[in-house]
């Protein structure tokens, strides 16, 4: 099952550090490279998700992410976090999370009922990296 692939990938990739914003040049265009994997390659989700774009994630950072969101031209447009509500309620905190870019033009936070990969109801925290990013990810 694809979920198992993510877990397996996480096991192999754990020793590898994620490229974060201080290395943001490596993340600006898709694909971002290891340890990130394309979400639609590991989970039954569309390659381009309307509103989120094409997502990459380091499996070791699930469920929170960061998920790197690329537009149709492969340009990094947003960094997204997915935080299960029950985990937050039960005391889990997600601290020191990486960002895909230091430039953030706006932030959207909204509820999501769940999807493969993060099945528990959770919040999407979306950091858009430029003014047009939201429209490019819309569809």
């Amino acid at each position, binding site marked *: 099952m694809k979920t198992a692939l993510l877990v397996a990938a996480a096991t192999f990739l754990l020793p590898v550090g994620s490229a974060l914003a201080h290395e943001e040049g490596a993340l600006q265009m898709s694909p971002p490279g290891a340890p990130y994997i394309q979400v639609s390659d590991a989970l039954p989700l569309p390659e381009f*998700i309307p509103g989120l774009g094409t997502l990459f994630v380091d499996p070791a950072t699930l469920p929170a992410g960061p998920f790197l969101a690329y537009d149709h031209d492969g340009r990094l447009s947003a960094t997204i976090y997915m935080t299960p509500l029950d985990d937050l309620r039960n005391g889990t905190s997600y601290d020191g999370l990486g960002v895909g870019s230091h430039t953030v033009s706006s932030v959207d936070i909204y509820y999501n009922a*769940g999807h493969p990969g993060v099945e528990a109801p959770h919040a999407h925290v979306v950091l858009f990296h430029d003014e047009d990013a939201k429209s490019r990810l819309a569809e």
Partner: protein
Amino acid sequence: MPARRQVLAIGGGVFAALGRPRALWADPVESVEMKGTARGERIWFAPVGLAVMPGTTVRFTNRDPGNSHTSTAYHPDILDRQLRIPPDAAPWDSDFLLPGESFEVTLTVPGVYDYYCMPHEMAGMVGRIVVGRPGDPGWQGAAPDSADLEPDALAGFPPVDEILAKGRILKEEAR
């Protein structure tokens, strides 16, 4: 003796002569769509409650452009879940359907069939199909509540009598 297809053709001709729809002779097919809001705040089966005749084929189609869904029967053979379909009925699991994909199942045993979406059961994405009517041979009514299901899932099943009375129940109408 004429073959079944020939009988259907003859029957269709008689029906046409009587001014009744020829489609009544075809095996019935009903549709259930998997839907969701643009940001995934809400997801649901439409209709969430459906009454059909035995032998009906139900086609599940994912109409949610940003998510994948399953139609999965509550059955011990699938993830050891509570039996919530008639004991003599075969369980089904569509596996994940990406946007635009479909899955069909034909329901022949009378009774109440409860099913769910694997990644969205916690969010209450469940559905109920009533095949036939109480009193039909082999009829199996609704399964009792169980700790196997989350409260949001149990709350999502429309009452059987309401499904039978209305035929189709959309989420907005479900209790």
